[in-house]
């Protein structure tokens, strides 16, 4: 009986939805004022102006570039932009809001979201539906002494206040934490690729998750700092809810906070009904019409999207599907790959190196491509030289790994490569010489019949175990024998 129950629990359907807030870090200025959108590493409260500080009398004006960036993302996700862009005020008192309201978009009360619908495909082919996207302003950043509950004071840095945020809300289409993580990784790749954001920057891409088991109560998890943490937080939450359900306890509708240090979710507030934000249309911003022409223009400027690129790698460049998938969805790898191909035409070799050697190394060491002293030019040269110098695959891998890990610099690698080739050439010469010497009978036969060369060839290849280039051996043999019998 008990076993049966556990079994049903493990089969329980899980629904996970995500709400991602992504800063459009590539913009020059904030969403509604001329302050720089590059606020990181600046003295607190220096990247501000009367507008983003909400000083009396100031008015917001929309950064048109932000509109284009948001449209790019929305078109890349096949989300339908609304014909009229309307902003709303979300009213609540919090010290991180200079005006005590946030300018955002709203899908009720006469408002419309920036865009509706859309999909993002996972590697399994499963489609995660996008519910909507909104453009809004980021609040300021609050620093606590220690934790939010024990801190004696809060320090507010308004440098971040007013940064353009794109809010992307999914349908609850993910059925396990792994899918949630993959969704985020793919979304990150897309945003990087569209050159609207640098999600790796601290706080540039933030995520809240909601989860329900067996169509039960929806629980929200906030304060998740990274994709890895999303998976951990969701796993914890599933275990917690399963335990409750198996004990017959009802899961409460609430918002929970992911405590990274303790690796648990803790209840933040119970949510019997939605908080009243008193949304109403922002009277200081006029509605903006999105016309077909604008959309067409943006479609033309969109870079090749990962899905399409993956197909091209397989069809035109002959990459395996696995390699193509990995490279096409990771912007940094993709860039290294494509750039390398500008210097050499060896896609399969480069592709394999990037995934099997470079990426493997990065994952092992928990590094990113930027940490390596490796660029497309070096990679391409190495690939070309390796073709030219006929170095054994084993030796080549060794060299590549030495280059990746920084054990050898590029010049040293090239020197070794040349030396290696010389060693190999010596080796070939040695074998050729010994084969000629130990087959004097065949040498006599050769005088009458040139085809005997094949016999020598066979012997050399046999000794070298086929590791050397046949054409080259043939030339070498012919040269040596002709010299002897002259």
């Amino acid at each position: 009986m008990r076993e049966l129950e556990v079994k049903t629990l493990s089969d329980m359907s899980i629904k996970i939805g995500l709400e991602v807030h992504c800063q459009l870090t590539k913009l020059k200025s904030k969403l509604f004022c001329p302050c720089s959108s590059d606020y990181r590493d600046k003295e607190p409260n220096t990247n501000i102006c009367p507008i983003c500080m909400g000083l009396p009398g100031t008015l917001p004006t929309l950064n048109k570039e932000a509109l284009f960036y948001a449209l790019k993302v929305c078109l890349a996700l096949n989300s339908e932009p609304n014909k009229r862009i309307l902003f709303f005020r979300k009213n609540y008192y919090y010290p991180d809001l200079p005006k005590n309201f946030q300018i955002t978009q709203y899908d009720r009360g006469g408002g419309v979201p920036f865009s509706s619908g859309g999909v993002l495909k996972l590697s399994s082919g499963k489609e995660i539906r996008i519910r909507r996207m909104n453009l809004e302003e980021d609040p300021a950043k609050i620093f606590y002494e220690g934790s939010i509950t024990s801190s004696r004071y809060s320090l507010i840095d308004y440098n971040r206040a007013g940064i353009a945020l794109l809010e992307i809300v999914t349908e609850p289409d993910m059925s396990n934490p792994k899918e949630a993580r993959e969704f985020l990784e793919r979304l990150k790749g897309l945003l990087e690729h569209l050159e609207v954001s640098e999600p790796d920057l601290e706080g540039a891409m933030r995520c809240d998750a909601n989860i329900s088991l067996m169509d039960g109560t929806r629980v929200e998890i906030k304060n998740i700092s990274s994709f890895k943490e999303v998976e951990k937080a969701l796993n914890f939450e599933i275990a917690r809810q399963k335990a409750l359900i198996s004990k017959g306890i009802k899961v409460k509708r609430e918002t929970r906070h992911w405590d990274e240090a303790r690796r648990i979710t803790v209840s933040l507030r119970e949510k019997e009904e939605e908080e009243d934000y008193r949304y109403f249309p922002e009277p200081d911003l006029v509605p903006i019409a999105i016309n077909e022409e604008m959309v067409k223009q943006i479609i033309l400027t969109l870079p090749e999207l990962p899905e399409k690129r993956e197909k091209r790698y397989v069809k035109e460049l002959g990459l395996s599907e696995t390699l193509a998938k990995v490279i096409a969805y990771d912007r940094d790898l993709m860039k290294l790959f494509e750039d390398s191909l500008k210097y050499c035409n060896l896609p399969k070799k480069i592709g394999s190196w990037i995934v099997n050697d470079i990426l493997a190394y990065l994952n092992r060491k928990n590094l990113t491509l930027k940490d390596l002293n490796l660029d497309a030019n070096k990679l391409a040269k190495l690939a070309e030289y390796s073709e030219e110098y006929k170095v054994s695959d084993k030796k080549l891998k060794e060299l590549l790994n030495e280059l990746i890990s920084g054990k050898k610099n590029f010049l040293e690698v090239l020197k070794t490569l040349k030396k290696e080739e010389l060693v190999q050439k010596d080796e070939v010469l040695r074998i050729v010489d010994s084969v000629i010497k130990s087959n004097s009978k065949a040498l006599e036969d050769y005088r009458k019949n040139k085809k005997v060369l094949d016999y020598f060839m066979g012997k050399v290849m046999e000794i070298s175990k086929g590791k050397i280039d046949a054409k080259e051996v043939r030339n070498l043999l012919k040269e040596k024998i002709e010299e002897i019998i002259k």
Partner: protein
Amino acid sequence: MKKLYHLPYHELRRKIFDKEIKVKDYAQEILERIKERKDINAFITINEGILEEANLIDNKIKEGEKVGRLAGALIAIKDNICTKGIRTTCASKMLSNYIPPYDATVIERIKIEDALILGKTNMDEFAMGSTTELSYFGPTKNPLDKERVAGGSSGGSGAAVADHQAPLALGADTGGSVRCPASFCGIFGLKPTYGLVSRYGLISYANSLEQIGPMAKSLKDLSLLLSCISGKDERDSTTLPLKDFNFSFEKKGKIAKRVAIIKELVEEGLQRGVRERFYSALEILKDMGIKISELSLKILEYAIPCYYIIAMAEASSNLARYDGLRYGLKLKEGMENFSLYISKIRGEGFGDEVKRRIILGTFILSAGYYEQFYIKAQAIRKIIRKEFDRIFKEYDLIISPTMPSIAYKLGEKSKDPLEMYLGDIETVSANLAGIPALSLPCGYSSNMPVGLQLMGKPLSEGLLLSTAQEFERIRGENFE
């Protein structure tokens, strides 16, 4: 003897250019006048640097440098328009120490024309009121009868101009705040078409309704000041894409031919004296060859509730930023709890009328009531707009009294908010519809001025001004 301060700006300007007078001497005279008439309480703050600034203009003129259209004009500025380095209080305790780090667009524009900021004028706190009694700095009195109010909320600006403490002033009009004091003090005041004048730097009360407007002793001055402040501003996205205004009417401008009066605005609730002045004004208009028809516009029954719902909703959000954390009133204690701190600050910093409107506005926007009030008010606003559009297809202007009565006695209306709100019946429609409205004096009742209001279709300021100019001319002739 007629003093310099009695003169309208365009006459002073000639004297300044002819080097007959120095701006500095004139400024000195004005400062003395303000000091003498301190009991009117028109100003909250006087620009300390005014004499030095006047000197600079004098030097410019002496050196023969080119000077702007408002050279030497001393302009009184309503205290909800931000002036860099000069305290801007909104007549509130909350901002009683607030010095803006930037100039409002209109201030930049008049400074470019070599105008001088004379000082900041009294008003109802955050522009919420029609009498300028609801000021943290005490009421402004009507210069024609100190027992009476100057009107509001731009009462300080109205009184300053009427009392010759300033030749020109800027007010701001959310539901009649320029026109009401113009009417009560017997001067000219204009609420421009929504979007004609930048609101950047105007401390918001009800964003979708308000416009900064000029106030003056003469139509010539009024149109000059309007020309200088109008036009597209990149910092205010609600401004219309228009440039280079010149509402001048040196030559005889085109005047209105067909005028409508609206039954709902002229029948009930008008004071007898006001009604009499209004109907004699109609006679003058007829003398000018204007055809007058009476129409009915039932929807205007809802204009006041509609106006107050929208204004209070917007205000409740606009005024949320005053939390004592970044600027304005601060408390030394109680910082350990954000909610308690801001409750305390807002409790202390805001007056009763402001609190009333914030509370009502918050209620109006609350879940469940938003549809019932805010959405409905917006729908009514749309209908009013459409109805006005329809009327302006057939008529050039709509005319009415500016206020249903002469200036109230001090304390007469401010004790009963509802009665005060009802006094806005003539004026709020122009704000709801976003159309221009001009108030001009049209006579006296019980020795107090009565104002005539002209409303026209969007951007018909030129027509309003030239029609008013012609009205003035004929009225002057009749007097002689």
